[in-house]
């Protein structure tokens, strides 16, 4: 029998500029989590993610980007937070659209695998894969900036998808 899913778990719209948004005490009854971010930075910044407040060197990522003229790929290893996107250019005045998918976030038999897609039409498009080198279930997610703040009006929505 079909099971309705893709449930909104938490949502916030920034009333003040902030460097990070945290979803905590995350419901453990779903299979996957999806986070949709539509936010403008107060400066040009990199969007990052941190799980369970772990600031150890446990994040790896690989991305590919296109900016209208060239396609590039880069990777980061042993980071203290995971790189979701580098295309949030505040000078464009355009919010970044970021979709983050975390599969099997409650699993304790595998590292946490994350996929992210980012778009900012004035800057480019990106796809990123990340791995959190931990087998702990994800109970908290922080979406943070590399520098500066997410601007007022930024929206951050967390969804649960059953499995």
């Amino acid at each position, binding site marked *: 029998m079909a099971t309705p899913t893709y449930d909104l778990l938490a949502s916030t719209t920034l009333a003040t500029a902030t460097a990070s948004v945290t979803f*905590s005490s995350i419901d453990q009854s779903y299979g996957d989590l999806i986070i949709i971010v539509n936010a403008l930075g107060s400066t040009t910044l990199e969007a990052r993610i941190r799980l369970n407040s772990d600031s150890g060197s446990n994040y790896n990522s690989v991305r590919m980007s*296109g900016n209208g003229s060239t396609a590039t790929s880069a*990777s980061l290893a042993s980071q203290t937070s995971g790189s979701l996107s580098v295309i949030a250019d505040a000078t464009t005045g355009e919010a970044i659209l970021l979709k983050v998918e975390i599969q099997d976030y409650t699993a304790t038999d595998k590292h946490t695998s994350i996929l992210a897609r980012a778009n900012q039409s004035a800057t480019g498009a990106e796809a990123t894969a990340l791995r959190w080198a931990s087998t702990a279930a994800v109970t908290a997610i*922080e979406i943070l900036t590399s520098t500066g703040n997410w601007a007022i009006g930024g929206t951050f929505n967390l969804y649960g998808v059953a499995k």
Partner: protein
Amino acid sequence: MSFMLLGILNSQAAGGGAGAYDLLETTTLTSSASSVTFSGLGSYSDYAHLQIRGIARGDRSSNTRGALSFNINGDTGGNYAWHYLRGDGSSVTSNRGVSASRMQYLWEIPAVNATANQFSSATIDFLDFSNTNKNTTMRLLQGIAGADNQVGIASGLWNNTSAVTSIDIIDLFGNLVSGSRFSLYGIKGA
């Protein structure tokens, strides 16, 4: 300044009537298997699209990476085409296949020599899967991060207007390992 959103506002129970985005089936491997098949998809024809969300690892020997392929309705004739765009941390590459016997190399997965506990996740959409007026197309986003980096987007074509009744996900080089999971969702249309 850090904005802390404490607690989760909503934890709706699963079950009950169908919605616009519904979980239809899940297969989680408890032992290794060379493939996973979703069959009987004709019973889901009240949905417009199908989505598969998965996380997988294989046991390909002597390698850090394997790959999954897709067949539709058991068709292994030369009726498929595929493209991918992929970044490995240093460059972006693309490849394609035409008149192929499967949609292949679209989802790369960690293999025996990859980092322990590393899996690859993917989200795959099969659009208008029961529409008999057009050939079937799919798209995919997948990635692995670590010692063997890769992120990719891909598309596939089954050059046939038949309604999709089954989808095979096949490990091209060995078996999918225990813990690999594939969930099938239905998305309503107009």
